[in-house]
Every structure is written in structure tokens, then in C-alpha cells.
């Protein structure tokens, strides 16, 4: 599953890894000794609230999907504490739930570089003076995380909580709900987690990859972080590549070209029809000259979300693939919010009809109408993410939609199923 380049960075002076191989620079299944040899000691005692300014200079954005500026999230948690009537100390949660089926970079990171995640969690906790620290992850990564915690003294107060294998288990309020002893279901979003999260305390939920970058920024500084990537998208990111050939995790520079990344993954670009970027809540794109960055003009850039790149081959039908995904997403509703509970299955049904060759010309209009009933009407992003996927499919596979509505398919040898 993991693909790591053999090139090892020069870290003997602990100047920070050079090139783009940052997060796996300590090698596979890195022990504490491997980790310290590659990265040097963590200057944890030097970290305080001023680190938030360093984070701001670094330009790090969240790698869990939303790409929110990490420093703002950390800063808001600190302020949430100041604003509270009774000061309660913040909670910091390393989110490794990774409910997205096409994403496996967080599991890979926790298995091979757990100490980097723990370092980042400790640094984030110090910068907001947190008193409770959690790692939230699925069963497959728990032994590696627990073994890493057992290896070091400074991590003993970190609690590891198992995340269920559901699509929405990693949504920030679902994480808080699950750790608080409830189910991993999203909460109504009226109050911000940075003001009132776990047990009413200011709560900071950061993706495990984000925390790994935090760990390196704490060591080598903002300028080092920015030496990879571009001004609008500094640093590196992990991507999970699937769909053609073996699944693999790559670390790539920010703002990298989509075609370049796929070629780097060893994929023959002539066999690529389109790419699903960002996962089941992401969007289909073609051609491949898009750049992977959370900020930039819509026609030239695509948001990497949690770094999912799923290839659709030339022989596959994009509508059929999307219909299958939407049916899965409808089944993954937390079943709390009516528009999601009823709207997503309704949309899945219409899309399946289009994919299956139903020639009713009103289907596309009906899909669009249902979309307006689902948009922005839920406690979490699940319905909106699903809607985004459907809209991108109708756009990117518009020729296929036309063909299906006349009983043909541009793939699959001609006829719609």
C-alpha cells in the first residue's frame, strides 16, 4: 500500500528533511529511535502560545479535507478559553478516523510514523495549554499508536480511542461525540467546537497528517516548511492514489500538477478518463492539467480534500461509478437529519436510473431539484459533499448523460446497461 522513495534526506544535522520526502523520512514502521535519528529531538519545552504565530507564517492548512488554516483553528481554541466564564482547559484530538473508503494515507502515517503524529499532538496541546489529549483512530492503526505511546514518557497522558469504520466517523463533531461516550454521529453545529466541544471544553480537532506537519514546523520552522510547494499552497501533502494499479500513498509538493502526480505514481496517463479528486465528497476532473491546491481559480485548480486521487479508466462509465458511490453515501447517512435521510436515497435513485439507461428526459432536472432540497440543510457536510460529487459528475460526464438519455453509453461498448 505504501510507496516511499528510497532517497533518504540529509538529516544528520537535523536541518529538516530536504525534498518532498518529509513525513516518512524515518522509514517504515519507525521506532522512537528511528524517529529521533531522522528528525532530532522535539523542542517541546520551547513551545508556547507564540507557536501559533509560527504556524501562521508556515501557511499550513488542514489535511483532513476542509483545508482550513491550521493556525486559525488553534488560535480560536485558545481564545475560546479566554472567553469562557469558567475557564476550562482545552482538549486536543488527533483525528485519524479516515472514514473515506478511498483514503488510506492517515492509516499509513499512523502505522509508519506514529511518533510524528504524537509529536504534533504534544506541540498543539502546549500551544493552547490543553490538559486532555486524544488520538482517535480505527482498529487497524491502534496497535501501532499504542506501541508508540508506550515507547515514550512524554506521551503517557495521551488516550487512544477507537473510531468506528463509518464514512462520517471523522467529522469533527462526530469525533467529539464519540470520545464523549456517545455515538460517532455529528452534532448540531450551532456552537463551535473551539468554544464548546468535549464536555463543554474548548476543543481542537486536527487531522493526524496536519499534526505531523505541525511536528516538523516546531522543529525546523515556517521557512523550512515553505521550501516545498508554492506560496498559495506551501509544504507537502500525502495523497492516496487508487483505481489503476496498486493502491499507494505518495507525498507530493503543494500545488503539484495532477498529471505529474499520477505519472509519478507510475500510471499510464493515456488510460485515464477522469480522476475523482478529494474522495466521495470531492469532484471528478479531466483533463489532467489541474493543479492540486485548496486555493486558486476553479478552472485550473482542484481542492485535494483529504488527498484522494481515484482514477477512472477509459473503459469505465463515470455515471455508473458515481451512481454506485452516491448509493453508498446515502447508506452512510447518520440518519439524523431528514433532508439527508430522504434526499440522498432519492438522488441516488434518480442517478441510478440515468446510469442504467432510463430515457426519461426529466431525470436530470429532477436531480437538480432534489439537490436544492438537500443543500445546506444538515448538521454536517455529508449532504453537501454528496451534492458536489453529483454536480461534478453531471458536468464532467455531460456527454455520457446525453448518450444515456438516448439509450447509449459512450463506454461499455455502446449501450447503457
Amino acid at each position, binding site marked *: 500500500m505504501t510507496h516511499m522513495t528510497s532517497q533518504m534526506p540529509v538529516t544528520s544535522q537535523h536541518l529538516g528533511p530536504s525534498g518532498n520526502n518529509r513525513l516518512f523520512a524515518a522509514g517504515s514502521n519507525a521506532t522512537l529511535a528511528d524517529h529521533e535519528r531522522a528528525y532530532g529531538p522535539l523542542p517541546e519545552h520551547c513551545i508556547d502560545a507564540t507557536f501559533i504565530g509560527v504556524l501562521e507564517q508556515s501557511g499550513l492548512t488542514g489535511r483532513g479535507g476542509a483545508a482550513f488554516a491550521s493556525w486559525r483553528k488553534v488560535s480560536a481554541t485558545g481564545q475560546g478559553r479566554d472567553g469562557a466564564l469558567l475557564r476550562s482547559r482545552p482538549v486536543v484530538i488527533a483525528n485519524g478516523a479516515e472514514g473515506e473508503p478511498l483514503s488510506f494515507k492517515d492509516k499509513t502515517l499512523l502505522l509508519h510514523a506514529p511518533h510524528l503524529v504524537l509529536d504534533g499532538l504534544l506541540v498543539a496541546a502546549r500551544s493552547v495549554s490543553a490538559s486532555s489529549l486524544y488520538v482517535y483512530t480505527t482498529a487497524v492503526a491502534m496497535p501501532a499508536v499504542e506501541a508508540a505511546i508506550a515507547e515514550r514518557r512524554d506521551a503517557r497522558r495521551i488516550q487512544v480511542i477507537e473510531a468506528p469504520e463509518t464514512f462520517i466517523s471523522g467529522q469533527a463533531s462526530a469525533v467529539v461525540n464519540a470520545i464523549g461516550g456517545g455515538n460517532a*454521529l*455529528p*452534532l*448540531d453545529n*450551532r456552537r463551535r467546537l473551539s468554544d464548546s466541544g468535549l464536555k463543554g471544553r474548548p476543543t481542537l480537532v486536527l487531522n493526524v497528517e496536519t499534526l505531523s506537519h505541525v511536528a516538523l514546523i516546531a522543529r525546523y520552522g515556517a521557512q523550512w516548511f515553505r521550501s516545498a510547494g508554492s506560496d498559495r499552497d506551501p509544504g507537502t501533502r500525502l495523497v492516496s492514489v487508487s483505481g489503476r494499479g496498486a493502491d499507494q500513498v505518495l507525498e507530493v509538493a503543494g500545488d503539484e500538477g495532477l498529471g505529474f502526480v499520477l505519472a509519478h505514481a507510475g500510471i499510464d496517463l493515456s488510460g485515464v478518463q477522469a480522476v475523482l479528486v478529494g474522495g466521495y465528497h470531492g469532484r471528478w476532473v479531466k483533463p489532467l492539467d489541474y493543479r492540486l491546491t485548496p486555493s486558486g481559480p476553479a478552472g485550473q485548480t482542484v481542492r485535494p480534500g483529504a488527498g484522494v486521487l481515484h482514477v477512472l479508466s477509459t473503459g469505465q462509465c463515470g455515471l455508473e461509478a458515481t451512481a454506485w458511490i452516491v448509493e453508498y453515501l446515502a447508506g452512510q447517512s447518520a440518519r*439524523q*437529519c*431528514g*433532508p*439527508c435521510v*430522504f*434526499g440522498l436515497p*432519492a438522488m441516488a435513485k434518480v442517478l441510478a436510473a440515468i446510469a442504467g439507461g432510463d430515457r426519461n428526459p426529466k431525470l436530470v432536472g429532477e436531480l437538480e431539484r432534489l439537490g436544492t*432540497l438537500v*443543500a*445546506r*440543510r*444538515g*448538521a454536517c457536510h455529508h449532504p453537501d459533499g454528496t451534492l458536489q460529487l453529483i454536480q461534478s459528475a453531471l458536468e464532467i460526464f455531460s456527454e455520457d448523460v446525453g448518450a444515456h438519455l438516448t439509450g447509449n453509453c459512450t463506454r461499455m461498448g455502446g449501450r447503457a446497461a
Partner: protein
Amino acid sequence: MNKKLHIDWTRCDGRGLCTELLPAVLGRDDWGYPVVRHPRNGDGTNATIGPDEAQAARDAVKLCPKLALVLQA
């Protein structure tokens, strides 16, 4: 001063009381759940409540059988 009527979708069961009290503000979707008729910036979860509708909105909050509504400044 306008206020925001927030719908907690995790509680709402689509009973429809709010849509009867605030017909100009809230409609109903295919399944009976309230639809914000004039969403602000596409926000389908928080309806804008003008001074004329303030009392009806307060009633809706009080009478909602699922306690799914909150009136916010």
C-alpha cells in the same frame, strides 16, 4: 433587529408546526421538513426573522414538539 431561526436538523422530525406559524418564512419539502423560503447566502439552516415575524418565531420555538428550533440574535 432581524434574528435567526436556527433549525437543528438532528432533532427536527418534520411535524410542520413551524411552517404553519411562519408560512412566509418556511415552506415544506417533499418529506415535510421545513424549507427556508428565502435563504441568505444559500443558508438552508438559519432563516432570517424580521420584527413582524418575531412573535410567531418565538411561538414556533416554544411549541416545536421536537425542541428543534432556536432563535438567535
